[in-house]
């Protein structure tokens, strides 16, 4: 009965506000009241290292709680343009104050990470997608655990450890953490304090410097034996740069216990390429692939591959043909602009693929 009334009220409201959603007006009062798009207000920014910050967010309506280890895509407007990037949640799920925390490491040339760490202000509004990812402890909370992290790969693991700690679970865990230098090591102090409070938690830190990892610090069976003799008996979570993951995967595979290794890869960074580059174009919705030489528009390539995408002017003025970019880069043949962000809308009649590209078409 009550839900019926609510539904009718919502329908009535939607007709009054049509063709816009009711949200378009509700947002004028408070952007967090939107129910179709989840937004959050920045309530606190804590500097973790010179290049990393934890950002406390108060999500508005539409937020669903997360599991420790998951990430969210955060959308921010930088110089007028919406950017979305995934960041691990470092807060305990379902906090009493309803807030969540992400921890961001500013990477060189990273537009979004530098904005979040150095320019974001308390009170700013960001956009959130629902929590995502299966890098979670699942049913292993009370198993013997091993965590291996590199750089900002510590963030999902910090979320897990805080959650175990808050649940008063007696930790049986070892954490091997790599960072370039001690002052670059996010959460090192908190992890050391955790090791003091939990006799079953061991924290080992290795400073790798900025270049390639020194041989004596590299992840090898021998080093694992030295730091955590029963490593092969532990469920292991690893998050960090690709070489670290590759080393671990090889070790666990040769030990025949790959199923005990849970890994989280950093999103590959999509770097804009300049100039023409051949590659494979994937049209995801139609399941068609076709080669591109980097000089001809995507619309022509699609048509030659037997598709008939919606289009109009074929000269970049009418925007009938826009399609969402899933991955890769495209080149605007009119002015040489590159688009390379997931979710970018591409005018396929005037855009050529730049290397491998996949489109929601």
């Amino acid at each position, binding site marked *: 009965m009550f839900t019926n009334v609510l539904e009718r009220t919502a329908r*009535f409201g939607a*007709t*009054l506000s*049509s*063709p*816009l959603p009711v949200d*378009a*007006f509700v947002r*004028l009062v408070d952007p967090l009241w939107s129910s179709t*798009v989840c937004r959050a207000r920045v309530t606190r920014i804590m500097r973790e290292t010179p290049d990393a910050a934890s950002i406390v967010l108060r999500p508005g309506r539409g937020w669903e709680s997360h599991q420790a280890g998951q990430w969210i895509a955060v959308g921010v*407007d930088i*110089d*007028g*343009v*919406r*950017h979305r990037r995934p960041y691990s949640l470092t807060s305990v799920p379902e906090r009493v104050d309803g807030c969540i925390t992400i921890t961001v490491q500013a990477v060189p040339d990273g537009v979004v990470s530098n904005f979040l760490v150095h320019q974001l202000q308390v009170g700013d509004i960001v956009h959130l997608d629902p929590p995502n990812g299966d890098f979670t402890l699942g049913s292993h909370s009370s198993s013997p655990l091993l965590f291996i992290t590199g750089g900002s790969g510590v963030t999902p693991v910090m979320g897990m450890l805080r959650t175990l700690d808050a649940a008063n679970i007696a930790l049986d865990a070892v954490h091997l953490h790599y960072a370039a230098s001690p002052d670059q090591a996010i959460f090192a102090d908190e992890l050391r304090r955790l090791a003091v409070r939990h006799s079953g938690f061991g924290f080992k830190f290795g400073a790798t410097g900025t270049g390639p990892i020194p041989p004596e610090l590299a992840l090898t069976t021998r080093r694992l034996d030295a730091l955590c003799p029963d490593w092969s008996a532990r469920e292991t979570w690893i998050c960090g740069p690709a070489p670290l993951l590759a080393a671990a995967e090889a070790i666990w595979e040769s030990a025949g216990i790959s199923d005990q290794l849970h890994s989280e890869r950093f999103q590959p960074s999509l770097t804009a390429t300049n100039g023409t580059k051949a590659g494979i174009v994937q049209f995801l919705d139609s399941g068609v692939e076709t080669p591109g030489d980097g000089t001809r528009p995507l619309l022509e390539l699609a048509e030659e591959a037997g598709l008939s995408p919606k289009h*109009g*002017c*074929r*000269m*970049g*003025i*009418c*925007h*009938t043909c*826009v399609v969402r970019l899933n991955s890769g880069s495209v080149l605007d*043949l*009119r*002015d040489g*602009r590159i688009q390379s*962000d997931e*979710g*970018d*809308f591409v005018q396929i009649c005037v855009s050529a693929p730049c290397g491998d590209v996949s489109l929601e078409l």
Partner: protein
Amino acid sequence: MTSTLSVERETDHTIVPITTLRTVHQHPSGLDADELEAFGKLMDDLRNEIISNRGKADADYIHRVIAVQRRLEVAGRLALFAGVFPPFWVAGAAMLSTAKILENMEIGHNVMHGQWDWMRDPEIHSSTWEWDNVCPSDQWKHSHNEIHHTWTNVIGRDRDVGYGILRIDERQPWSKVALGQPVYAAVLATLFQWGVALHDVEIEEVMKGRKTKVDAKAQLAAIAKKGGRQLLKDYVLFPAMAGPFFLPVLAGNLTANVVRNLWTFSIIFCGHFPDGVERFTEEDVVDESRGGWYARQVLGSANIEGSKVFHILSGNLSHQIEHHLFPDLPSNRYGELAPKVRAICEQYGIPYNSRSFSRQFGSVIRRIARRALPG
């Protein structure tokens, strides 16, 4: 000759590749291929300049216009609830009229052109925007963005030349039906949103058998659905919410819709029909280069001079020339482009048509009246 033309029409959009430059036909601007290429290059440079520096200030602008428009709409509707008191009714109707004008012109029309797509905000995007008008957005984007903006003022291709009911050019055939066109124009102006909605159904194409009835019926169904919702909102639900004071609300909403219709009609007719604006034949656009397309946009459009508020209320279509050159650049930048475009046009001897509203609109009225008669 006639059969060749109709074959061409059936091959749909035969747009010439951007790079091709051939002068088979004299371009209406009188420029040769090299001059057109140079002119096009200068226009491309202007476009790239805006693209390279559009940013937060532009995003702030459209966010502000949207916020003002929504507040005006809410305030206007609230004031109309107290519309039994004349000052409230006048204020309410004025605010709601302004809100509807802003929504259709500076926001809806321009968002649907993709002017704000670069912000990557899914809520202010050409693929998602639905405007406060009985015309469904997808039909508008076809008839306007695709047909009108590609084939600007080409008789027989651009269906905006007279909208299929008015005779604008002496080259359009005359019949006795044209005698009544001052009346048709007045009716069209009053009911403009319905004219806009029915425009893409292309009833004359259906009658000529060039478009299927099934396609036209599907479009009519979409118009009926959206139009029904618009009517329900403005003429049933909001008045009903006022209870015994439903009449002032109904009258206020009707006034707002009519004011918006008259305003949009006037601005849009001033864009392409004043004296001095050229119309073209299909031969004019054979093998047209990008530079030629640019030059045709200038020849086929007219600007209206006015204050900053006037420009915003016109959706910056007062800068119709700049809008036709760069339909997907943010409208708030047309004003700064206008003097630059004008200087380049003067350099190339391309007429740049810019006059006051009264002069442009006066010449439109005279044209509609004159073409009601033969010749």
